[in-house]
């Protein structure tokens, strides 16, 4: 069970208070009618499934009811940061891979038996 820092409440709270809402930073096209079917389909249905750093939207459903973003490592499940809606992440897959160059990978994968 995750331990999540709500950037609006300013506190760590148990995962039970939150709902995950999928990939973060999916912006609705400003002019939907100008989108091709394929573009609209991509907006509606296609999501990243990265191995590593992932930006997700969560909502503090039984807390302040605010939506916010979480940068989470999909292998270690470590939450690297949380930030408010409209803000940009300070940790990304790129910044992580640069930081890690030359250093051993401390988080190892596990196979769920």
């Amino acid at each position, binding site marked *: *069970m*995750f*331990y999540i820092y709500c950037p609006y409440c300013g506190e760590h709270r*148990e995962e039970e208070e939150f*709902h995950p*809402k999928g990939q973060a930073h999916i*912006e*609705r096209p400003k*002019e*939907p*009618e100008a*989108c091709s*079917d394929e573009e*609209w*389909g991509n*907006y*509606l*249905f296609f999501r990243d499934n990265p191995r590593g750093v992932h930006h997700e*939207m969560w*909502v503090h*459903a039984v807390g302040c*009811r*605010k*939506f916010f973003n979480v940068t989470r490592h999909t*292998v*270690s*499940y*470590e*939450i690297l940061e949380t930030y408010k*809606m*409209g803000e940009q992440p300070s940790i990304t897959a790129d910044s992580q891979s640069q930081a890690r160059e030359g250093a051993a990978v401390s*988080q*190892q*994968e*596990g*196979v*769920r*038996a």
Partner: protein
Amino acid sequence: MSQSKQQVFRLNTGGRIDRSRTLSFTFNGQRYQGHPGDTLASALLANGVDIVNRSFKYSRPRGIVAAGAEEPNAIVQLGSSEAAQVPNVRATQQALYEGLAASSTNGWPNVQRDLMGLFGKLGGQFMPPGFYYKTFMAPASMWLTYEKYIRKAAGLGRSPMEADPDNYNHFNQHCDVLVVGAGAAGLAAALAAARSGARVMVADEQEEMGGSLLASRETLEDKLADQWVARVLDELAGCENVTLLPRTTANGYHDHNFVTLHERRTEHLSDTAPVENGHRQVRARLHRVRAGQVILSTGAHERPLVYAGNDVPGNMLAGAVSTYIRRYGVAPGRKLVLSTSNDYGYRAALDWKEAGCEVVAIVDAREAPASDWVDAARAQGIKIITGSAVIEAKGSNRVTAARVAKIDIVAFKVSGPVQELACDTIASSGGYSPVIHLASHTGARPTWRDDIIGFVPGLVKGVQACGGVNGTYALGDVLAEGVEAGIKAAAAMGHAVQTVTLPSAERLQQGPAVALFQVPHEKPTLRGPKQFVDLQNDVTAAGIELATREGFESIEHIKRYTAMGFGTDQGKLGNINGMAIAARCLKRSIPEVGTTVFRPNYTPVTFGAIVGRHCRDLFDPERYTALHQWHVERGAEFEDVGQWKRPWYYPQKRAGAVNGERESMAEAVARECLAVREKVGILDASTLGKIDIQGPDAREFLARIYTNKWEKLAVGKCRYGLMCKDDGMVTDDGVTSCLADNHFLMTTTTGGAAAILEWLELWHQTEWPELDVYFSSVTDHWATMTITGPEARKLLAEISDIDLDRDSFKFMDWRSGKVAGVPARVFRISFTGELTFEINVQANYAMHVWQTLFKHGEKYGLTPYGTETMHVLRAEKGFIIVGQETDGSVTPEDLGMQWCVGYDKPYSWIGKRALTRSDTKRENRKQLVGLRPKDPKVVLEEGAQIVLDPKHAIPMPMVGHVTSSYYSPILDSGFALAVVKGGHQKLGDTVYLPMADGQTHEAEIVSTIFYDPKGERQHV
């Protein structure tokens, strides 16, 4: 009967048991005696009970092997009464108490004389891995029959058939440092962390804390190690910042240092919790711990050697032999042969000898072992046979001899003559396997270390391992590692640590161990006698070899094919040996073969502890409307809608019934329907979701979120709205009313209320934060009473000051005023097609208003109706219910509700773009239609599939299904709503509904509006 006669294997001195008190217990109906401090296992051994179970697959007799959580055989059913039954208890972990009643989980009809044993022995060679998959595959329909007998023969324990009388609690805990395992490493770590002032929790699964130190020959500060344990526990118990949890197993290690601890508070006292001062004690607690730092000091399990006949009772782990002698004062036999690959095993022989029993020989796989331990054994005059191993245990119900021979480990063969040593006990040690289970719950991969011949845990952030789990076994090193872990953990949480002085430990010179897992036999593995790897699941070395020959190379596949590491055992004893055997067969190294990752829970947890207080009335919260008590008194039957309890229908006493017989549901619903159509009915609609929307941009927001138009909705007006997701599929509907220019009241479906509020917030917070609008749930604040039917106006006029004239208070208007003397909002909207007023009052006034309505309503025939009647009435009018007519794949156009779509609204509202996608524009989509059965007596089944040609060969092409279907009292006919491919073009066509019983119903596609097609009745 004297004690000595009863407990023939009990030693006269030694152990941590209280010989001054005797406890009696039963096992498989036999009466035995033991002492406080015993486990069920130690008491059984003291009484010379060799066979405790029958094995899972071959039904071989099995005895006690281990002394702790790793015990694979002594799995018992506990409980002296039906309600107290607990399956799958390890006898090695169950403290003895007066009156304990246990029985074997396996063995039919009993463990001593077992019918399956015969089949198992005869059929043994015919039951290779995958036997069940291969044998009982066909015909599939017979599986249920097979399974019943397989389960009975296998015996997997059983759950109680009566309610559990006990209580269980959940605790949410926070601490700086959680120490798991209170052996030498854990206690040292806890001491260091505690002295820093950090909040420390210490969980240990055993009856007493201290781990291996409780049964150790080793000394600390020249005293036996258990005295140091007592001193440390004393200090920790006196610290306010320390919580000691004995009898508490850390069963699961979840994300972000969340660890679940299962604390058994009364299971050492009796099989149901004792009652004190009239209160039943809490039997178990589940601590949900969020720890800043976790210290894993879970120790190591000794690994048995794999040799032929190693499952015959009398084969034990060397360390377990020591534990039974030193901790429980039980020598589990008379004549011991020890087979070992390392120095640690020697302790069993020394303890055995000291207990006054005969050590026939130590058989050491090493060519020239040399260490303090070897010297100590030689000094005791114990015979040591080197370069050799026990290759086979003889005996059926108990070991009678060990066959010993020189072995060549590299060539994997017996390299010398075999001698047979008479004995009743064979202890074996293949070294230690660190208990990495918890660490692997986190997903971190363990690492193989050649120097310790074992896996050590991979570690995620915020966790440290120390002592045996880290592959560190020398006592002095273990303590030093513990202290270091404690200091580091406390420091990570911002607590400075004072120095901790370590007790001086003996430094014994150790010799290197040899890597021995499976012992070679004279015959090849596949043809020789069985060598067991996983005793609980009856997996043999031959089974694993066969699996590799059949092409299984991944250890995960071998595991599933052979069942190694399954069950309550989870591979505690067998997994490393199994991997080593697979590695040998595949000519790879153990780390190349991999490791299976252990899953929660480490040992079984009772459902009681998992459930805690979330059972019975507290299993799921129930929501009641303000009028609930009235419905109960009126004898309503209730329907669950989400968590709400809604009146379903109100059965009355049948007219003329002598014995108070009540109406059937059909009778009640028919009466309620006709009352609404002909007089007036009343519905408690309070559960409808209500969202108060305010702000200058509220109107703009509604226009974006709903499919239809809102810019011209005047104050005092209501409008039905349809909501889609951006994929164009209908997700909710309801009426929204304009209370003031910047103020709206949205209603949602009962089940959708919370989700729709979140949906509105999602769009506002993420896409349109510039809109100045606010949302509040007011579902519980307002009670809603719907009066509907031709007499509704007359009734309301009697108790309201609102002008109800049909021309001033029109259909789809709302007015505020007083009803029954209290402030109310009255909405003239209709879900029945009749003249309707929905009266909203503050919830705490609801009962007064409801009762006033009934006081005045009797003369009009006011009839309460429930959700079933509501459904019939709305369906007669073709009104949809989201989630019934829709399933997330239905657009407004599929519903024929284009009238509710604002195609030319300026903003591209949610769902609009998707309505012009190729798939949503496709002809032949499933579209909502009405169905009228050709036989009016037929009420079609909801969910029934629709076909166009009933003579078509099976499988018939299915063109749709029934979404709603009822009997209509006003039409005196069955009728239905359905979705049918291209249905809007098929009005008048005949379709067919083949049923499971072979009948085929015929129905005509008609309009969805069955009653009052022009909608005149609601406008009167």
